[in-house]
């Protein structure tokens, strides 16, 4: 149905393109491109400009009497606030920790799954399932059914072996969130790396096996180098999504205890929608945008380098 729409949209444009082709040789693709480019331009520029504007304003939703220019005061207060540095550290720990764990486990599992074994299709489907679970569901399942200190499954297992059950979110809040995130993102790393392995030259592997290379030799000398492109893409994409992790924290710890699990995203949410401090939240937003741009510069470069147009 949607294709029919796409075709009718492109029809007149393609026709006019044909006329032009006779004249100039090029095709006029502007009518086809304009809607998406225009909308994305608005989507990018308007909120960005507003964030920048508010970042230099005194603006609190609860107190409209306070307004006017703040200069760099929002940034000054923010940089003096220990919560900012702490939230940056939490963000980095979450992003780096989850990426390292999922990439390492993901490549090993991708290599394991690339052997043929009984029921591989079903095993693969089970393996990637957590990726499709909505973040609020996975957070609540882990929090209530598995990690709960009284009636969670982990507590029951601990008691069965005679240990004291662990209060996961109380004692190890950041670790607990990382476990949930690894569970959600390991399937992604696995799926991408597994697909990349599938495109490997089967004869090369066979030759290496005949030469007597062990599974471990093959993994480190043939499969891992082949995976380097897929690994770099996986790192960058996970980085984008993990920097913005929100729902898992919102549902499980609400940033606590204290600031233990407050990442930059959650800090901005607290400042903006709980404290209604638009100026301060916008200043933090500017910092988040700058950080994300540093990351995205790497991604667009690494993707762009091998983009065949």
């Amino acid at each position, binding site marked *: 149905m*949607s*294709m029919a729409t*796409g*075709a009718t949209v*492109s029809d007149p*444009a393609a026709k006019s*393109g*044909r006329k032009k082709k006779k004249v100039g040789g090029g095709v006029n693709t502007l009518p*086809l*491109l304009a*809607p*998406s480019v225009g909308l994305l331009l608005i989507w990018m520029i*308007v909120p960005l400009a*507003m*964030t920048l504007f508010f970042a230099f304003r005194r603006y609190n939703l609860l107190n409209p009497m306070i307004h006017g220019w703040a200069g760099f005061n929002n940034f000054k207060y923010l940089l003096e606030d220990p919560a900012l540095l702490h939230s940056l550290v939490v963000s980095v720990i979450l992003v780096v920790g989850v990426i390292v764990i999922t990439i390492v486990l993901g490549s090993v*599992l991708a290599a*394991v799954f690339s*052997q043929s*074994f009984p029921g*591989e299709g079903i095993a693969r*489907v*089970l*393996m990637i*399932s*957590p990726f*499709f*679970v909505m*973040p*609020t*569901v*996975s957070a*609540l*399942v882990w929090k*209530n*059914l*598995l990690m709960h200190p*009284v*009636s969670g499954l982990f507590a029951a297992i601990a008691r069965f072996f005679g240990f004291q059950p662990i209060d996961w979110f109380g004692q190890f809040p950041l670790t607990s969130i990382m476990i949930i995130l690894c*569970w959600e993102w390991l399937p992604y790393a696995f799926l*991408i790396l597994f*697909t990349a392995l599938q495109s490997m030259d089967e004869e090369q592997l066979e030759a290496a096996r005949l030469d007597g290379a062990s599974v471990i030799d093959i993994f480190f000398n043939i499969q891992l180098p082949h995976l380097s*492109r*897929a690994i770099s*893409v996986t790192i960058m*994409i996970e980085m*984008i999504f993990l920097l913005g992790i*929100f*729902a898992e924290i919102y549902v499980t710890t609400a940033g606590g205890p204290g600031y233990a699990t407050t990442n930059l*995203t959650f800090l*901005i949410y607290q400042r*903006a929608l709980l404290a209604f401090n638009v100026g301060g*939240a*916008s200043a933090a*937003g500017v910092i*988040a945008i700058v*950080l994300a741009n540093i990351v*995205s510069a790497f991604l667009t470069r690494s*993707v762009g380098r*091998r983009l065949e*147009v």
Partner: protein
Amino acid sequence: MSHSVAKQRHWVAGTIAWVSALIMFFPIAWMALASFKTEVQAVQTPPLLFFMPTLENYRAIFSEANYLLFAGNSVAISVGATFLTLLVSVPAAFAMAFYPTARTRGLLLWMLSTKMLPAVGVLVPIYLLVRDAGLLDSRTSLIIINTMSNMPIAVWMLFTFFRDLPKDIIEASRIDGANLRQVLVHVLLPLVLPGIASTGLLCIILCWNEAFWSLNLTAHNAAPLTAFIASFSAPQGLFWAKLSAASVLAIAPILIFGWISQKQLVSGLTFGAVK
């Protein structure tokens, strides 16, 4: 000798693979199990493995929790946003794949870069814009936001599909006497349909699971399932069996979509960088 070694390796790999797969799937299976327990059984220690399954929770979800409202919101938002995304992405990807110019590469990379704009960086202005437009707690705002945030991915995914089609197919059919409409409908459409279908599927999955904006911009009327499930995290909402039943219903359709389309999703999930 080497044959038996190969066989043994497969056996070891198979065991490791199956154990890992079962561990990964376990939380989902455990949740599904809990959804058939009574509330008392669900919090019982040690946890029950064998019990008389009940459908009581599922019944309660439909009768008490107004589940259909939230599921309806999820469907409306996902389908609406996916439709709009495809409406603007298909022509753009078609143009860039079939008529590339010197600017196409830059344009694609720029679109990708808008995806890197962190949602939280623009939370404040979007919230204020939505509020001032009177669209807080409305499906419209979420449809628009999901459309915009998925468009770069959709364009990229469609571009990689379209790019791999033979370019001279249009010219060849034109020479054979077909007019442009016939070419588009009878030649191109069947070829691009699978690509459009899997792009649409990825958009639906991303919209369905989107939580940041739905938690921040909806209250009750327009709340999709992600926000509805999150409401169970409130202290008064400790109904774990019902939560499990609601969760199973919320994730089931997307899980099935994901299983069916895992191969096709990869090009969208990596912006076409891995095939």
